[in-house]
């Protein structure tokens, strides 16, 4: 069985372009909803022993205190999460005291589960580091690929393998960003440092996946199998197809377990990874490899 992936390259380009356009549209229209890691601010998670008070009642109490940009999110029957501007320790205690006074009864006691407050200096630093780590990881990968593929500089220069792997990876990152822009708009999902970690992992995985395909193409090139470059690439794709599917399965299975069993703290982290990893397997077959053939074609014309 030999699936003619490259023959239908145009179809894959169309699908890819649609995905990229939709993701970009979602990203630019809605934008990501940044968490307090990046914007600065506070997050307070409290639970009540019996039932939590209604969200708008709590909101009224906090507005009275003069807190800005307050968002309160109920979670289950017992908990709610308050997000607001940066609180000093005194303000934090004041908020707790007020909520206790208004809503706590001897039977229904309040318990503070989590509190985070991040000042602008820290959030600026986190933003800066996130951007730099994404840039550095990409540069590192291109450099390594150029080195690893140095012996196959014909017909396509070795650094171009790295560059194409990065292009495929950008597709995956863009898809995840687009989905999270939608989620941010419609279900209030915020992105923080953990989201950046998920993105970086997706980048690593996507590139790894592409490398395995390219590796096989490299081996085929060295052994001169296939009549032309397109056929060589197509053979490589077919030979690595089951590996791509199975590796993706074995990575997705634990992530599914994490998504369903891991609890709410890790929910969006697992989701970002799930989308990105699945997309990573797709892009190494349908984006990275056809692109390589395209690059070779352009080279011949030019």
């Amino acid at each position: 069985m030999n699936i003619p992936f490259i023959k239908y390259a145009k179809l894959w380009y169309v699908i890819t372009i649609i995905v990229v356009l939709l993701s970009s549209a979602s990203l630019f229209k809605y934008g990501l909803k940044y968490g307090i890691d990046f914007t600065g601010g506070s997050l307070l998670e409290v639970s009540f022993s019996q039932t939590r008070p209604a969200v708008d009642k709590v909101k009224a109490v906090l507005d009275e205190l003069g807190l800005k940009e307050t968002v309160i999110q109920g979670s289950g029957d017992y908990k709610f999460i308050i997000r607001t501007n940066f609180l000093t320790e005194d303000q934090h205690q004041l908020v707790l005291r007020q909520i206790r006074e208004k809503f706590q009864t001897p039977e229904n006691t309040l318990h503070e589960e989590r509190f985070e407050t991040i000042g602008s200096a820290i959030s600026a630093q986190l933003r800066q580091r996130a951007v730099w780590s994404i840039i550095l990881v990409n540069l590192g990968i291109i450099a390594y690929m150029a080195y690893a593929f140095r012996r196959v500089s014909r017909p396509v220069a070795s650094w171009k393998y790295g560059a194409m792997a990065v292009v495929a990876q950008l597709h995956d990152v863009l898809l995840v960003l687009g989905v999270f822009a939608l989620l941010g708009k419609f279900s209030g999902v915020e992105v923080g440092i953990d989201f950046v970690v998920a993105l970086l992992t997706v980048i690593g995985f996507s590139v790894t996946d592409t490398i395995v395909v390219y590796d096989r193409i490299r081996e085929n090139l060295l052994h001169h199998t296939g009549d032309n470059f397109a056929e060589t690439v197509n053979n490589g794709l077919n030979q690595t197809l089951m590996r791509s599917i199975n590796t993706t399965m074995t990575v997705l299975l634990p992530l599914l377990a994490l998504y369903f069993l891991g609890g709410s703290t890790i929910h969006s982290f697992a989701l970002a990874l799930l989308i990105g990893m699945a997309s990573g397997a797709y892009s190494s077959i349908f984006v990275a490899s056809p692109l390589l053939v395209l690059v070779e074609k352009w080279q011949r014309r030019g």
Partner: protein
Amino acid sequence: MANKIYIKNISRSQIKWRSALVAGLFIICLFIVVPAYANQGLDWLNAKANLGLPRLPDNGFSLGLDLQGGAHLIYQAKTDNIPDKDRADAVEGVRDVIERRVRGGLGVAEPLVQTTRVGNDYRIIVELPGVTDVNQAIKMIGETPVLEFKEENNVPERDLTVAETKQMNDFNLAAEKKAKEALRAVVTGQLDFASAALQYSDDIQSKNNSGDLGFISADVFPELYTWAKTRKDGETGDFLIKSAGGYNIVKRISQREGEKTVSSTNLSNLEYNVARILVATKQKTDIVPPKESWKTTGLSGKQLKRAEVTENTQTGQIQVALNFDDEGTKLFSEITTRNVNKPVAIFLDGQPISIPKVNEPILNGSAVISGGFTLLEAKQLSQRLNSGALPVPVEMLSQEKVDATLGADSLARSFKAGIAGLILVMVFMALYYRLPGLLSVFSLAMYAVLTLSIFKIIGVTLTLAGIAGFILTIGMAVDANVLVFERLKEELRWGKTLRNASEESFPRAWSSIWDSHMTSLISCFILIWFGSGFIQGFATVLAIGTLVNLFTAYTVTRTIMRLVFPLFKEEGNYLFLGYRRSSAAPVNQSK
């Protein structure tokens, strides 16, 4: 790279040796991860054979604050009024003050207080594991350090006033009366000892434990001990014994051999379990507060200009030099004049940090403290002095705290997810790749215990992100196996023998395995080097997982395959994916 592949001939006995090594490593790692079972075994061995084997340390994994609960605070040190070159030292002094406060004042056992520099800003990171009521901690950390110079307190204790003496005597008379009443009740059998203790005893411990005081030694309860020595078990004293705290009615319960300590005062080291009813009396010290050994002089950090480490020009000895301002110079000359040949203590936050002796009056406001310091000790002392002299205010930039129950919940959930993920992957591998897949289950189990024991040995702090990273590496760990098994399938399809196919599939898959692991490692190292805490925790776990994976995928799976495959026919059977029935004739080749 993969041009020529030679099959090495490895003898059967070598394979058995390697398998034994792998099995041994697995057992060792398993014991490191769950030492409780290993220790049970060792105890049994020690009991049977008396080998005196040491037990394995039974430490858990070190957990991050998000899993064990605790607080993470970041402070900005405001160093504006401190000259550039002294800033690092000044911030180090603040760090030291904060650490002393959280350790001593709050009793946090393992706080982590460290300084970091971001651009031109100095920051102090405080981690308080297990502490979730951080309000108190935050108050203490924010306070300005108090540096005080104190001198010996020579003021004699005051005597009791007439009224106080009368009050004390009245109280003690009443106590004696009450004690006699209790004694009568016990001796006549009107009350048993336990209920008498409950009714009369002023000693909380004995009151709530039917009078039981536990085993006593001669050092702590000399009067009771002397009495108990001459009595029999079960005997109750029929007279009141006066001790420092009041009147005692005592009952001896039992005796035992105490710890063997050499003591001149007490040659027999028997200990007695006694019960007592204590009726408390008052002493002079209960009314007049005990004398403080140091008293304030009025000289404090405010009048200290700065302290620095210097070297004695004549002896080369390392010393700490102090410089006072005008007011401080005056106070210090007075203090040193009246305390020649006596000690003067320097207190920071109520704790003495140095108690130098005054050799001569110091009138010019510059003094040195010498006394066999190492450079490090001198530096620490000068930092501490400066933290009181030039306080560096701190401002909280961020606070993160997680309640212990939430942390435990996260831990339990991610643990469950990890186990479920592991089992799903194992089932998938065995179902898809059949026998080789089943073998990879062992290598995956090996991967899990080896990685976890490395976490334990090098003390990786596991955070929620780290555990997520570990769960992710489970999936990635089988990738190498998948690559090999796909190769195996191809080689079998080409009609190679099982042995040739399996031997060739490893080196052929190697370049892909190597390249993909290298890119992962490059990402990880960039993240460890450049990332912040959360990212670092994740990347560290991922890096360790990737490295272990390189080892287990290649070595463990290969060894098990070499051990098991010869048990099957040369061309394999349905247990192997890629097996073709028609290709009965094996192709002999080694290339």
